[in-house]
């Protein structure tokens, strides 16, 4: 390990004062010169937490309001910057045992405008459908009793008065989508919907003008109401996952410590860092940006970037990548833009290629629409021609033809798939799988081959102690106490392994080397093998014993140093999950950027025959393409920056929440937690969902097979249309709900499991759920 020291001044600054946060960058202006701060909070689970936080922050002078959003675990604080320092707000949150992190306001997605618009349309169409239905029922009952033609006309005119503006407003999303599709010379589900609604309205208006007995205003509005309901639920589910993903991203702390020209340190959101800025990376921190090391030397854990588990040395002039984890030394990094030739530029180029090359997956719903539209429209045309030949006047024939269009109006068909999607996405959410892409469920269902990345996906992202039983427990306990005083990732892992709670005293940091401290009256050192004077022979021996491990040494006074080997271990349920996936009929492969010995070991334990080590991003894509050429549908599961291109290239992909940012945004879904089981759950839910989607489509086909002949025969009245439409919608929705039986989460799978810490009786929590 390197013995180069960092700038002494820099180290003093690190030790003395934590960096000041640039609060203007984290907050937005509010009324009366106040500022608004959005916090992501860990551990909000119930109403008691909400009360604690709101009361606790409210007592702070200068806090104008604090409001907890229980649904998305965020707190909005409005404060007066003249009276209270935002750091005090964070300190108060810490004291309340709800550690919080500020949102970068530039990154927060505004409350989805689509979802609000759909809700407004839903309200309008609901109002219209209910009121017009009341008038329609009066007309229907009047038609079989003694309604006067004047009253009927009056009712029809009132219906038109309500229905025309309501349809004009509520159908706008469908019209826009249908027009866009036609411009692309394609047909989607919105095209038949639009035609159906337009014709129903037109026919009803003509009927009203000609004093006919029947009008279809209620059908058009009801159809819109049902469809908007499905669409709103779909959108809402997607938004919920997006919000959850955003909160998780903030809790993972994407901020950087910028070195100001005057030497001061300021913590800023990563989005505010510009090329040319200097950024300080302290020991144990994640490198926030890509750049070139200016001063300092350290070792970097690059497993998240390359999959390589043995730390890499860096010194002045070396390139470092966002997502790598710093070791013992402090680094000052000059931020570079993603220049050509760097790893990140190469990865971004590959992602771009992969995404444009990815053959557009045809959604099941669009496939159905492509079959549906020509069949129904030609059936309507034939009906018209047929009745004309049979001798009916042209306007009566047209009425029957339009009735065919209305009754087949794709209510069941358009709800069949969204209904299943909403239930499936909800199931996945409760099992800790957040979907990025709406049609990922359909693609997941077709998977027959699963390719895993090794580091961070099959193995834990943090290293753990190899063979803890072989180490003297007392030594381990003392070493852990010293380790607790250090921020080095290996030291942290050691502290965890030793179960230390109280750090050692009189700690002195030796940047780039390790820490020295007093523990139980003895001077002890923890750090690199050089720092603890481990002999060359011993070093080689340890390395041959554990070729994939990283080492940290501990020495008490002049005693013989103890070497701890830390390596990434398989996730607890990796073996069981891989076996279960194989039982589901999937072939398993491992593609890793790590060295062959490390990959071979994992492959042996998991009984995986197909594995490739030392894979580059490009060779990973090549392997995926080879599998695709062999006719396989591949699910790629990976977390590293080097996996991002293959995640984008694979037909469907998953990424763990510990993964690199770029990998997560390239994947179709993200799963939470330290376990691998969500991969299996995702596959099971997707397959069940796919089955139900097909089932629902068949239900819709059967419904049409019954309804169309009735309509062609000319027996469809508005009453029949209303009953058939709501009946078929109900059936497909109830069928979709059967998915709730699949993959019930074993435990409440809310991402923040801190329920025990809540001072609320279990019964109340139960009802809250």
């Amino acid at each position: 390990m390197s013995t180069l020291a960092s700038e002494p001044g820099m180290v003093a600054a690190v030790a003395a004062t934590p960096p000041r946060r640039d609060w203007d960058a984290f907050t937005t202006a509010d009324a009366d010169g106040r500022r608004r701060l959005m916090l992501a909070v860990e551990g909000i689970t119930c109403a008691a937490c909400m009360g604690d936080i709101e009361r606790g922050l409210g007592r702070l002078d200068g806090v104008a309001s604090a409001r907890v959003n229980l649904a998305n675990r965020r707190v909005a604080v409005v404060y007066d910057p003249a009276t209270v320092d935002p750091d005090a707000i964070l300190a108060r949150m810490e004291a309340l045992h709800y550690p919080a992190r500020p949102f970068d306001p530039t990154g927060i997605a505004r409350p989805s405008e689509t979802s609000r618009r759909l809700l407004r349309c839903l309200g309008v169409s609901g109002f219209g459908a209910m009121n017009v239905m009341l008038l329609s029922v009066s007309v229907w009952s009047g038609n079989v009793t003694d309604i006067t033609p004047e009253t009927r006309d009056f009712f029809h005119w009132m219906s038109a008065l309500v229905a025309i503006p309501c349809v004009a407003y509520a159908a706008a999303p469908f019209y826009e989508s249908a027009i866009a599709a036609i411009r692309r010379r394609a047909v989607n589900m919105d095209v038949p919907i639009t035609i159906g609604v337009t014709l129903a309205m037109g026919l009803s208006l003509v009927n009203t003008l000609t004093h006919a007995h029947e009008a279809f205003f209620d059908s058009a509005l009801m159809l819109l109401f049902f469809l908007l309901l499905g669409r709103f639920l779909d959108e809402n589910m997607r938004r919920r996952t997006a919000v959850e993903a955003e909160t998780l991203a903030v809790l993972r702390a994407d901020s950087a410590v910028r070195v100001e020209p005057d030497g001061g340190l300021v913590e800023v959101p990563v989005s505010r860092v510009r090329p040319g800025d200097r950024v300080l990376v302290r020991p144990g921190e994640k490198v926030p940006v890509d750049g070139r090391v200016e001063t300092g030397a350290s070792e970097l854990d690059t497993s998240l970037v390359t999959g390589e588990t043995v730390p890499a040395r860096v010194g002045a002039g070396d390139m470092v990548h966002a997502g790598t984890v710093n070791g013992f030394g402090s680094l000052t990094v000059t931020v570079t833009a993603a220049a050509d030739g760097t790893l990140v530029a190469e990865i971004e180029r590959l992602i771009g290629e992969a995404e444009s090359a990815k053959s557009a997956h045809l959604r099941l719903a669009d496939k159905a629409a492509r079959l549906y539209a020509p069949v129904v429209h030609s059936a309507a045309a034939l009906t018209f021609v047929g009745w004309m030949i049979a001798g009916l006047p042209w306007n009566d024939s047209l009425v029957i033809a339009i009735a065919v269009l209305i009754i087949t109006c794709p209510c069941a068909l358009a709800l069949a798939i969204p209904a299943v999607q909403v239930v499936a996405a909800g199931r996945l959410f409760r099992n800790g799988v957040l979907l990025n892409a709406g049609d990922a469920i359909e693609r997941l269902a077709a998977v027959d081959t699963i390719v895993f990345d090794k580091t961070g996906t099959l193995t834990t992202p943090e290293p753990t102690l190899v063979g803890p039983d072989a180490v003297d427990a007392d030594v381990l306990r003392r070493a852990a106490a010293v380790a607790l005083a250090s921020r080095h990732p290996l030291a942290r892992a050691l502290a965890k392994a030793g179960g230390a709670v109280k750090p050692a005293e009189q700690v002195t940091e030796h940047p780039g080397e390790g820490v020295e401290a007093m523990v139980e009256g003895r001077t002890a050192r923890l750090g690199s093998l050089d720092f603890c004077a481990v002999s060359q022979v011993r070093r080689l021996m340890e390395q041959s014993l554990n070729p994939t491990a990283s080492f940290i040494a501990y020495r008490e006074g002049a005693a013989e140093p103890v070497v701890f080997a830390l390596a990434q271990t398989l996730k607890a349920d990796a073996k069981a999950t891989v076996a279960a996936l194989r039982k589901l009929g999937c072939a398993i492969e491992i593609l890793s950027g790590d060295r062959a010995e490390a990959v071979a070991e994992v492959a042996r334990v998991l009984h995986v025959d197909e594995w490739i080590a030392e894979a580059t991003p490009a060779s990973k894509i090549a392997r995926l393409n080879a599998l695709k050429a062999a006719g396989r549908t591949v699910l790629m599961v990976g977390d590293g920056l080097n996996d991002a291109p293959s995640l984008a290239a694979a037909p469907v992909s998953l990424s763990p929440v510990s993964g690199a940012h770029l990998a997560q945004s390239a994947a179709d879904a993200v799963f939470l937690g330290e376990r691998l089981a969500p991969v299996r759950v995702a596959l099971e839910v997707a397959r069940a969902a796919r089955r139900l989607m097909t089932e629902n489509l068949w239900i819709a086909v059967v419904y049409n097979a019954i309804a169309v002949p009735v309509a062609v025969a000319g027996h469809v009245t508005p009453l029949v249309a209303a009953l058939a439409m709501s009946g078929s919608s109900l059936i497909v929705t109830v069928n979709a709900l059967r998915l709730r039986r699949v993959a019930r989460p074993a435990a409440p799978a809310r991402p923040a499991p801190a329920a025990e810490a809540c001072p609320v009786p279990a019964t109340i929590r139960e009802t809250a759920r």
Partner: protein
Amino acid sequence: MSILVYLVPIALSLGLLGLAGFLWSLRTNQYEDLDGAAWRAIQDDDL
């Protein structure tokens, strides 16, 4: 039945009132946190 000429528009305007109420509640962000609102009602703020 000429009373309908008054009653139907009255009924419709009552419906419109309901719609206006819904749009107002939407605009004032009352659907942002459905879980929290239920608990807020029984919070003892004077403790």
